[in-house]
């Protein structure tokens, strides 16, 4: 890793055990600015645990997480959102009865102010702030091609559209680093290709870094600039897709899984 550029996201020496089982062991890697970085590994390799530690859901026993040079180790998830970390959800986790706009506007929560009284009384400064943020949310939805659904309840959307809402919501936190949790889960080949395209467009247009936790190899190989491979809680490989594809450790890990 080049010492010149500060990584957008840096994970150092993470370790976490659950009841004696080492879920993470000395895990370190960095996401370079503007990169699409993938974290892969067979089932139970520790991808999700690592993801959850970065997001602040789990607290690591040891190690540090840095976001753009700031130490964010042990911060709560809601604090991380304000620090420039956005994330999507594998199961979408949207409010099904709320509209698309409402869901996306939620992500502006930490960027806006105004409590019950101000909102209730429709305080002018609050209303103008809301209008401004609504405009931005609409812009993000337009960018993701869901502007026609702004006022539709999420519950009635197709899976693909709902996924876009999920990503729109993550983007609406204005992240420096976007974490995508298995974005292709439950999708067919065509939809997966669409998602891959979307990820690239997002990176290019918004100039942000993306960390992708994914199962689907085709997706990862197609979009990732760099890949970190975990197995049994340890980093077994870290490199470009081409390097990783031929790494014997990786092949063993994946073949081993298939037995």
């Amino acid at each position, binding site marked *: 890793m080049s010492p010149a550029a500060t990584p957008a996201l840096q994970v150092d020496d993470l370790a976490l055990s659950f009841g004696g089982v080492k879920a993470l062991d000395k895990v370190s890697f960095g996401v370079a600015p503007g990169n699409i970085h993938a974290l892969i590994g067979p089932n139970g390799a520790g991808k999700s645990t690592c993801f959850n530690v970065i997001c602040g*859901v789990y607290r690591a026993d040891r190690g540090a997480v840095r976001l753009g040079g700031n130490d964010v180790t042990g911060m709560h998830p809601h604090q991380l959102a304000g620090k420039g970390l956005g994330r999507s959800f594998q199961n979408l986790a949207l409010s099904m009865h709320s509209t698309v706009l409402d869901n996306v506007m939620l992500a502006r929560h930490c960027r806006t102010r105004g409590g019950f009284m101000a909102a209730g009384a429709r305080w002018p400064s609050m209303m103008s702030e809301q209008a401004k943020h609504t405009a931005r949310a609409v812009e993000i939805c337009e960018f993701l091609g869901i502007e026609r659904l702004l006022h539709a309840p999420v519950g009635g959307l197709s899976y693909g559209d709902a996924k876009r809402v999920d990503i729109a919501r993550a983007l609406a936190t204005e992240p420096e680093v976007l974490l995508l949790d298995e974005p292709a889960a439950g999708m067919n080949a065509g939809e997966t290709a669409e998602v891959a395209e979307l990820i690239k467009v997002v990176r290019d247009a918004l100039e942000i870094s993306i960390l992708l936790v994914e199962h689907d190899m085709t997706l990862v190989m197609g979009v990732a600039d760099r890949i970190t491979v975990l197995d049994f809680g340890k980093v077994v490989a870290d490199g470009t897709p081409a390097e990783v594809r031929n790494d014997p450790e990786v092949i063993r890990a994946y073949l081993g899984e298939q037995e």
Partner: protein
Amino acid sequence: MNTFIQVMVNGLGKGAVYALLALGFVIIFKASGVLNFAHGSFVLLGGYVAVRTQDDLGFTVSAILGVATAGLGALFIERVLVARRPLADPIALALLTIGVDVILTEEIIRRLGVELPFLGRPYDGKPIQVGDITFFRTQLIALAVGAVLVTLFFLAFRLTGWGVAMRAQAENREAAALMGIRRGRVTAAAWVIGGVLAGVAVLFLATQDFSGSGLSRGTHAIALVAFPAAIIGGLDSTEGAIVGGAIVGLTEALSAQYISFEFSKVAVYVVMLTVLIVRPSGLFGTRERTRV
């Protein structure tokens, strides 16, 4: 010292019946995820059938009839109302049972009119003196019946297919369905058991020894005391229900004696809040896992 023993006896005697009620709550909650606010009206239903038939059929037969009616009533509610919405919001289902409770209770109280009928003729009001300590037969029989029923239940829970299925279902309702467990049958059985336990409880509740009053709105009120008992133990823990029942009975009796009677009901809830602050899912309850 005698006073203290008497207080403990009083408390445990009540605790036994609370445990029966709490166990009913817990079984229903475990199987269907429903906080059953209608438990008090199951109690009234069983009691009503028993008091209406006891003059003609004698206590034993009417008691069995009452218990059976409470069980069938619970089954009816489950099949006709709850089963229609198996995955509905827990709050909505809790409210549904409130609706049932309101109607059933009002109707039974209306039918009772000005009567205050008592149950438990064979054992009620004939205390046994041992030295300076009084043992009320109702409480002794409640303890014995409670112990037998609880033992039977735990044996069934551990050893029968129903018990295995029920435990699997409590772990994960959707997964259990995938594993081929007939959810409907397990849940229905749980409601029947809950109703039966409520029906048994009323045989002790509507007595002179236990509550001092016959079947009335007060009986329904006592059934609600089993709420904190179930919560203290943990809503999905059958062992917890037994422990919770005992804790509530003893807390009531001890605080009535050593603090003040009017504080005793508050004391139960203070104990419950303390438990919840430390363990938000009760002493033995499993913590809710939030999906990410």
